[in-house]
């Protein structure tokens, strides 16, 4: 794609700005910031990827993955700022998900051990795990606010911390997975996934692109479930103190 084509594509941004102004939506500043950020971020990533691919060294890949994980964790950790060690709990969760999925893909030689594959697929997995972590923490907070009485009831009857939170944990895990599952149900019918579209545009055989996309769909499903479950079990003990009392100020309102 030529530079001119990219410049011309800014017409879409102008269209959004005109609409925002015409309907007094007050989004002009946000649209501009988003576009500038997206441009800068993607350009920087493009150059970094170029360098990492050129380097073709495991250390380059590991550093790149670490940066991706840290940025994702930082974003997701905002949801549960008051939970002790929340940053590390999300870090451990996403790292396990990344290791399990990449271990599987590389171990069974489903993808070649090259930075192009590892980094691109990891980006999808880590990004998805970040969203799941966000959804999970958000839902958990809402459920605890709503069902605090049930937690107190189980504790007051001599139940354990785990018994008191388990139904809520289960609900939060389920709820955080619903968008992923629902999104995958209409895949290809409503919209073609970005990666598949990219491959087809780049000239790949559509069937080949579909096969690869299927791999990603299954992978994302597994990664999403793993993220919600691991994070759930790492987070819940922090919601209680040593005297098995619910510590309600562990969450900050979003």
């Amino acid at each position, binding site marked *: 794609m030529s530079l001119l084509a990219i410049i011309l594509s800014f017409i879409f941004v102008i269209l959004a700005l005109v609409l925002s102004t015409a309907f007094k939506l007050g989004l002009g500043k946000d649209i501009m910031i988003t576009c500038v950020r997206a441009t800068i971020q993607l350009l920087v990533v493009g150059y970094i990827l170029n360098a990492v691919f050129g380097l073709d060294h495991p250390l380059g890949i590991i550093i790149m993955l670490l940066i991706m994980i840290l940025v994702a964790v930082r974003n997701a950790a905002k949801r549960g700022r008051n939970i002790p060690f929340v940053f590390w709990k999300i870090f451990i969760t996403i790292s396990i998900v990344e290791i399990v999925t990449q271990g599987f893909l590389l171990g069974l030689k489903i993808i070649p051990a090259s930075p192009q594959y590892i980094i691109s697929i990891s980006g999808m997995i880590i990004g998805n795990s970040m969203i799941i972590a966000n959804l999970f923490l958000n839902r958990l907070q809402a459920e605890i606010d709503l069902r605090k009485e049930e937690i107190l009831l189980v504790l007051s009857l*001599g139940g354990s911390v785990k018994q008191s939170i388990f139904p809520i944990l289960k609900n939060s895990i389920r709820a955080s997975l619903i968008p992923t599952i629902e999104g995958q149900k209409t895949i290809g019918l409503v919209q073609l996934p970005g990666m598949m579209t990219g491959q087809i545009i780049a000239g790949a055989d559509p069937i080949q692109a579909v096969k690869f996309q299927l791999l990603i769909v299954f992978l994302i499903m597994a990664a999403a479930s793993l993220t919600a479950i691991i994070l759930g079990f790492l987070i819940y003990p922090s919601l209680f103190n040593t005297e098995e009392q619910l510590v309600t100020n562990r969450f900050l309102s979003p």
Partner: protein
Amino acid sequence: MEIELKNIHKSFINQGKQQSVLKGISGEVEKGEILTIIGPSGSGKSTILSLCNLLQTPDEGELYVGGKEIRDWDVRNLRRYVGIAFQSGPMMKGTVLENLSLPMQLQGRTLESPQTYMNYVGLSEELLSREAKELSGGQRQRLSLARTLVNQPSVLLLDEVTSALDSKAAQEVEELILSINKDHKTTILWVTHDLAQAERVGDQTWLIMDGQLVEAAPTNHFFFEPNDQRTKEFLHSSRDII
């Protein structure tokens, strides 16, 4: 002595500010006695209850249950020994039987004779298969008490358990609680805003105001010959409102 509070202090952080809820409460409750706790809203009455089964921990002071400091108890055993019934009679999702069996289920055991408990609290056995959340307020409160009794508590904490009920249901639940006390010699700490009820059911009554125990006296004495001027004023103003 079943319950003994020694200079109990408790404060909470509310909107970034430390708020003192209990300011040095001391008092005793004999085994099998009914203590009624009265006082204005927000005076700290419910907090006293939540400390007795360690749903909250005192910041200062000592609290003895059955002769043992609450922090020396295994917390789950303490919560079985000291049962609590909440104002709303909260129910878990599921049937009446599932709710009634909950205390046993939490210990990985099965409730042997749910019918006995249902009969005891005056609920029909036919209700066992109904969804618990469909029950009326009075039925919920009875079920809530039955569920607490499954653990065979020696102490029962009651937090405004009749305040959300109509007068007939309230009277029936009150009678049920009195029979629990009589049949099982259960020590009861009963928070109520209904002064007539406090007078009717109590052996001993405490007035809590602004986190302090203003007066503790045998119930008859408390209502007929209060010692403290603040008690006289509180009883007078509350009766005026009624």
